[in-house]
């Protein structure tokens, strides 16, 4: 087992969260954590991995047995949870928090062997690799399936997935129903139908959508939420805003009296960025805000610090 220096100690005073709730779900931290699977997505560069890692850390602090899963690129989660290289075998950087990466080839073999109970794996594997490379949705279904099977295992109270960005997440979440419609009645179709039902059960699975308060990330977050809701694929557990500037309680008149120099310039930049952010935050309607962490260097520190802020209410 790997040594770990993630701080999992309980937080005495968590910062207050913002209000707001999403259709159907009650956006308290307890409410969010009381599921088997949380899928964290957001546009590239919004801090998805950091937020997924922080959510996993926080859930572990709250006493849950957590599995954090890297659905695609494992580097983000590996850095934020300080695991070193991640592979298909879980590592447990801290008691109560395990981390694993989905490797599509390994997941496909597992799917064939355990779910489809395919005989003579050697010959079949090649045929299925051809299929998986060509029929869109197969590989995505296998990845979603892997998440859901982990979520049903008694070892974990909660599975937190560091998901692909918003641009790609829909094709993953739609994959089971795509496959269900594409293949005739069979074990494959049964499996796909099971996945679709599990995903759409808001007591089992939900998505956490992250955005930074900027033009494109907010637009993508809102589009994703709208599509998820309209297609009833997965419930939205929470919408979170990341890298939000704290209020600078300074009026413009005071700033105008300040002589030129870094004091003036830093305050001006802060006010201008914060003003833009406020507009975007208004559009986003986030359940929870996470601050921009000034001067924090390592991903591990970022995730530990963000974990303090999870306090939906």
């Amino acid at each position: 087992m790997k040594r770990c220096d993630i701080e999992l100690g309980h937080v005495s005073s968590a910062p207050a969260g913002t209000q707001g709730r999403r259709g159907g779900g009650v956006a308290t931290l307890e409410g969010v954590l009381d599921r088997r699977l949380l899928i964290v997505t957001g546009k590239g560069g919004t801090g998805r991995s950091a937020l997924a890692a922080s959510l996993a850390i926080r859930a572990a602090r709250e006493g849950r047995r957590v599995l954090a899963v890297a659905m695609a690129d494992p580097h983000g989660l590996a850095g934020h949870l300080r695991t070193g290289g991640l592979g298909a075998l879980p590592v447990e950087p801290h008691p109560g928090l395990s981390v694993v990466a989905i490797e599509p080839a390994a997941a496909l073999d597992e799917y064939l062997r355990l779910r489809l109970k395919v005989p003579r794996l050697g010959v079949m594997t090649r045929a299925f690799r051809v299929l998986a490379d060509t029929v869109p949705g197969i590989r995505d279904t296998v990845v979603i399936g892997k998440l859901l099977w982990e979520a049903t295992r008694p070892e974990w109270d909660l599975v937190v997935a560091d998901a692909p960005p918003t641009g790609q997440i829909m094709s993953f979440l739609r994959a089971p129903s795509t496959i269900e419609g594409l293949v005739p009645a069979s074990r494959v179709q049964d499996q796909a139908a099971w996945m679709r039902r599990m995903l759409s059960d808001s007591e089992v699975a939900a998505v956490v959508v992250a955005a930074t308060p900027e033009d494109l990330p907010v637009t993508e977050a809102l589009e994703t939420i709208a599509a998820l809701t309209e297609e009833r694929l997965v419930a939205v557990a929470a919408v979170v805003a990341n890298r939000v500037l704290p209020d600078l309680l300074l009026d413009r008149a005071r700033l105008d009296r300040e002589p030129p120099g870094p004091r003036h310039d830093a305050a001006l930049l802060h006010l201008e960025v914060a003003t833009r952010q406020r507009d975007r935050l208004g559009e986003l309607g986030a359940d929870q805000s996470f601050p921009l962490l000034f001067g924090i260097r390592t991903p591990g520190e970022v995730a530990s610090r963000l974990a303090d802020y999870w306090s939906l209410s």
Partner: protein
Amino acid sequence: MTGVVLVVGSGGVGKTTLSAAIAADIARNGRRVLVLTVDPARSLARALGIHLGNTPSAVPGFPRLDAAMIDASESWEGLVRTHADPATAQRLVANRFFRAVADRFPSGQAYAAAEEMTRHADSDQWDAVVVDTPPSGGGIDVLASPRRIRGLVGGRALRWLTGPAIPGRRALYTVTARPALRLADTVLGGPLLEDVAEFLMDLRVTYDGISKRSRHVESRFKTAATVLVTTADPGPMRETARFFSELPEWASRPRAVVFNRALPAEWWRAGGNGGDLLDANLERWGAEAHRQTEARAELAARYGMIPLVVPWMAEAPTTPAGLADLAGATERLDLKSLGLD
């Protein structure tokens, strides 16, 4: 010959804005330039003229600057129609897997970008083509896409299915593949794999054409100037390391590294001792500025390149002139410095 500028970098670092800025600056310096962009923000789309489509159009009020957006699905149909006989092309386009493959094959959008870039660069209508790369893979996907697409239409799996290609004849299932396909179809409940095999064999017809074309696309990458964009955040910094190790396989080493959202280095410990609100604010921004200075020093030490600096702005420029100013203020982003003049 048309020079190609490839703008690469992790998602969310400002590639799209910077691509437009570099192009606008080139146009203002008297050259004809096309910017190929992927999914621009509303404000940028507005700055470049709202009618961004697959076909290049002039940016209103800004001479010599044209813009176009990359559309993956249209390009795929074009690709198939170019490289297959009409009957096969028709069968392919009508195939139920086609739309799905075109939309969702991981390298689809990436190859579409590469293809569009090459087509426009070969037309010699512009002195330069500036290419914004799709977010996934931050640019490497685009560079690797010609090889991947050859893998899709002529890869090992397909050869295993169909045996070696015989020109002018549709391949047949190989003896090894046929029993496996049947077995697989019993699990799938119907002739799905056989359908897929049919589809792949039609696609196989396009192999020679696509193979030749994609090698030409690759040669364009080799002579392109790459501009790598990053910020001080861990993700983009990690991606930057990846670019430096992986780029040489596909293209030239980056000609410029742009460090976006930069803060003045002198903010670090610039505050007074008053301990008022402005000092406290400067202190935290100074800490961020210091982290950035360290990140830039790390880049310089590791790769022997001094990063170009684009300051942190509350809002990206909303006019072509503003975009041109952004690139113009940053030295060494002109064609000459990028080695294309």
